[in-house]
């Protein structure tokens, strides 16, 4: 599968990646190396003794807490995300079309908003206690510390698993499952032996993102009082910069290790390539219909409906109250431009991220290429660096650079910052999408004389579309809630819904913050439905 002209044959191309593709991947890898190089340089410049930092107890303790949280959140999101995807895509669950639209949305809550809403609802003296106290329940589970952080992060990150798995499930061929069933296998056996091998790549892809997100999260862990490595980086960022940068280097190193390990494991997993000819099977739930509905409703009730209700309560209280103090009232009209800006930034970033990441994904999924593997690892691990570090790295590289300087604090450079930070979310989805295109299809098209570009657009892209759009959807949702890079690098006056939420929260205007959060959820619902969920909706 060479870059131009008919390919001489699959056997040869498998070992020799096209030069053009390798060069593109090299460039992408070098660009994504930027944040890591910045962190490394700062460590040298500040004279951080990374060696002794690594072995000190004050590093190990928060690091082990970060890892403990990340592993447990990964496990629970893998289970819940896969379960929800299967129930909403492949079964006759009542209301599944609505659940499909709702399921990705919890991702769009900035984690501090989600955590604040849950604390307000569940903490001692909170909204729920006020509601349940009259019926005799007077103590709710303690939300602080590990349990609270695990709960909140599971609720708000499971879409990293849900979206790619749902996309993959929607494009499975029914033939294997039908055969297995005709042979008398039970539905569970069919799921385990036929469906799982086909979706495991997507589950791993999503779970890895959850892991990396969790170790980089700041908002939820600080609000819930769980002291992780990233929390310490934030606490030290101003007045103990040698330590903050040393910890950031350690965090980046851990992320790279995890990414490389996952990649190695991924290559050993078996893949099943089947092209969908008909729509996938729908599994009747039978007597499990109602328990399944309780599970889906209960989980999304906590992850989405509950927080939205709390936000709605605050917004309603603000809209109806007569608050004359400046900055505490609500301003619905003032959210128009932030909404447009958020949508614009989200869509552009998603498109650019897919374009940047697809060549790398193609290279890694189709060939054995060291350059592809290295570029891929850089892209994915970049997600684990705290957003403020990525943003500052771009400031560092761009502010005095000949060409980039002119773009400093303009939209293109902001989009670049988003892509650097969030590109990982498209990478693995794109790899899974590429893997879903049978090589022999392209070869067949080539034999028939179709040119490379035409093959890409008429044969391969349509097959990759569900996976690519799932990846794009993740990037879009994450971009719309991104804060540190937006505050530091957006053009002056380019307010987004995320900056609006943060600004209102910062000045104590709970109602306006809640209102902006609700608009963000609504906008996300519209955009994910248009771009991602509609494609799953035909089955």
């Amino acid at each position, binding site marked *: 599968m060479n870059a131009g002209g008919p390919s001489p044959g699959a056997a040869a191309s498998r070992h020799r990646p096209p030069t053009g593709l390798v060069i593109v991947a090299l460039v992408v890898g070098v660009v994504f190396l930027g944040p890591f190089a910045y962190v490394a340089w700062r460590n040298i410049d500040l004279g951080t003794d990374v060696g002794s930092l690594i072995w000190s107890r*004050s590093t190990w303790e928060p690091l082990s807490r970060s890892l403990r949280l990340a592993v447990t959140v990964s496990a629970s999101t893998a289970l819940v995300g896969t379960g929800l995807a299967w129930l909403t895509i492949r079964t006759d669950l009542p209301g599944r079309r609505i659940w499909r639209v709702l399921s990705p949305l919890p991702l769009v809550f900035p984690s501090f908003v989600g955590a*604040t809403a849950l*604390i*307000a609802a569940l*903490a*001692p*003296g*909170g909204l729920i206690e006020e509601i349940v106290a009259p019926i005799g329940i007077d103590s709710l589970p303690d939300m*602080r*510390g590990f349990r609270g952080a695990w709960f909140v992060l599971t609720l708000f990150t499971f879409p990293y698993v849900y979206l790619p798995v749902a996309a993959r499930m929607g494009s499975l061929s029914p033939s294997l499952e039908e055969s297995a069933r005709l042979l008398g296998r039970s539905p569970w056996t069919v799921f385990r032996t036929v469906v799982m091998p086909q979706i495991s790549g997507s589950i791993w892809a999503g779970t890895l993102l959850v892991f990396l997100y969790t170790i980089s999260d700041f908002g939820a862990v*600080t609000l819930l*009082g769980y*002291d992780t490595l990233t929390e310490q980086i934030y*606490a*030290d*960022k*101003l*007045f*103990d910069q040698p330590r903050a940068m040393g910890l950031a280097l350690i965090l980046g190193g851990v992320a790279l290790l995890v990414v490389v390990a996952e990649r190695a494991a991924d290559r050993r997993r078996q893949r099943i390539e089947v092209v969908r000819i008909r729509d996938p099977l729908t599994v009747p739930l039978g007597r499990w219909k109602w328990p399944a509905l309780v599970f889906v409703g209960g989980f999304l009730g906590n992850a989405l409906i509950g927080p939205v209700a709390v936000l709605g309560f605050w917004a309603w*209280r*603000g809209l109806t*109250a007569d*608050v004359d*103090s*400046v*900055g*505490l009232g609500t301003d619905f009209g003032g959210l128009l431009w932030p909404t*447009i800006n958020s*949508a*614009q930034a989200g*869509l*552009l970033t998603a*498109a650019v991220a897919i374009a940047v990441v697809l060549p790398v994904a193609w290279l890694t999924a189709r060939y054995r290429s060291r350059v592809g593997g290295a570029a891929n690892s850089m892209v994915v691990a970049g997600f684990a660096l705290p957003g*403020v570090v990525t943003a*500052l790295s771009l*400031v*560092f590289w761009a*502010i005095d650079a000949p060409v980039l*300087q002119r773009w400093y*604090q303009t*939209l293109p450079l902001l989009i670049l910052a988003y892509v650097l930070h969030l590109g990982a979310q498209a990478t693995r989805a794109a790899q899974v999408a590429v893997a879903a295109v049978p090589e022999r299809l392209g070869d067949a098209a080539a034999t028939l004389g179709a040119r490379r570009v035409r093959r890409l657009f008429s044969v391969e892209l349509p097959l990759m579309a569900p996976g690519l759009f799932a990846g794009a959807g993740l990037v879009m949702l994450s971009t719309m809630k991104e804060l*540190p890079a937006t*505050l*530091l690098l957006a*053009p*002056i*006056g380019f307010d987004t819904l995320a900056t609006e939420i943060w*600004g209102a*929260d*910062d*000045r*104590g*205007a*709970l*109602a306006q913050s809640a209102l902006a959060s609700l608009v963000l959820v609504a906008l996300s619902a519209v955009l994910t439905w*248009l*771009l991602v969920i*509609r*494609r799953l909706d*035909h089955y």
Partner: protein
Amino acid sequence: MMLTKKLLPVLLAVSVIAAACGNDADASGSDTGTASITVYSGRSEELIKPLLDAFTAQTGIAVQVRFGDSAELALLVQTEGESSPADVFISQSPGALGLLAGEDRLRPLDPDLVSLVDPAFAASDGTWVGLTGRVRVIVYNSEMVDEADLPDSVLDLTDPKYAGKVGVAPTNGSFQDFVTAMRAEIGDEATLEWLEGMAANDSPNYQKNSPIVEAVGRGEIPMGLVNHYYNLRALEADPSVPSANYFLPADDLGSLVIVTGGAVLASSDAPREGEQLLEFLLSERAQETFAAQTQEYPLRPGVAPPPGLPPLEGYAADTIDYDLLGDGLTGTIELIRESGIEQ
């Protein structure tokens, strides 16, 4: 499927066009004024924009503002170095100003400008000047605590009878500023002892001031250490909340005045205009606006404090002199961490 195919290019095209228009608007906006300055503001837009607009109307100097978190904006200025587009930095925390002053990123201000406030509320080397003040208080739930049971000194909070009752935000800038002042006043050893006492009391941790005020309001904890104006604002949003401010005696260490301040960057090419802006923010009119809007203390002598608050004059004007502390805030953070107060 077909619809999405058509829709996607349209959405992207609209995004690109909107981007292009947005950039045009920015460009034409900055060309119109004769003089223009760029401000990095840690103070929220709603709490300062009207004043900035009034400044532009009065002087004809256009103001471009980037809003953000004070600490992160300080890091931005630090990373941008000589090429920083900013002329003025307005910070919610003196620590962020102190950091930049220590790195020679701030330009010494006109002595006349600095002398508008008490010397305690400005940098000793004149690199920044205070704009407003916040007083450290104990916020308490009036349904859970009798005001008579509150201590006379913040140092008494290590008493076992306050175990588990006092919310703190050890990683927050204002708590760090408070500990820094404590070190300057009673020394590192006694400060560490106090922090360890708070740690031994299992004082509940929060991220910052506002969650403490909310937790006290809900009754999750009976009291917490915060800046005075968070509770006043919470009460404005919902007057039924049973949280109240307790002002420690004015000469107590716990009654630290934390200033928000402004500075002109060393790399600014419009330092005069920048100073004009700071001078405007210290004008009586602007200072009155701060007092009315955010219930902060005006720092210009003669401007009345927000109604219901004790006068600022009584307070020991011991603002933190970062120069005297040697290892500065790094030492504070190390002490806080060493004490185990962070949970």
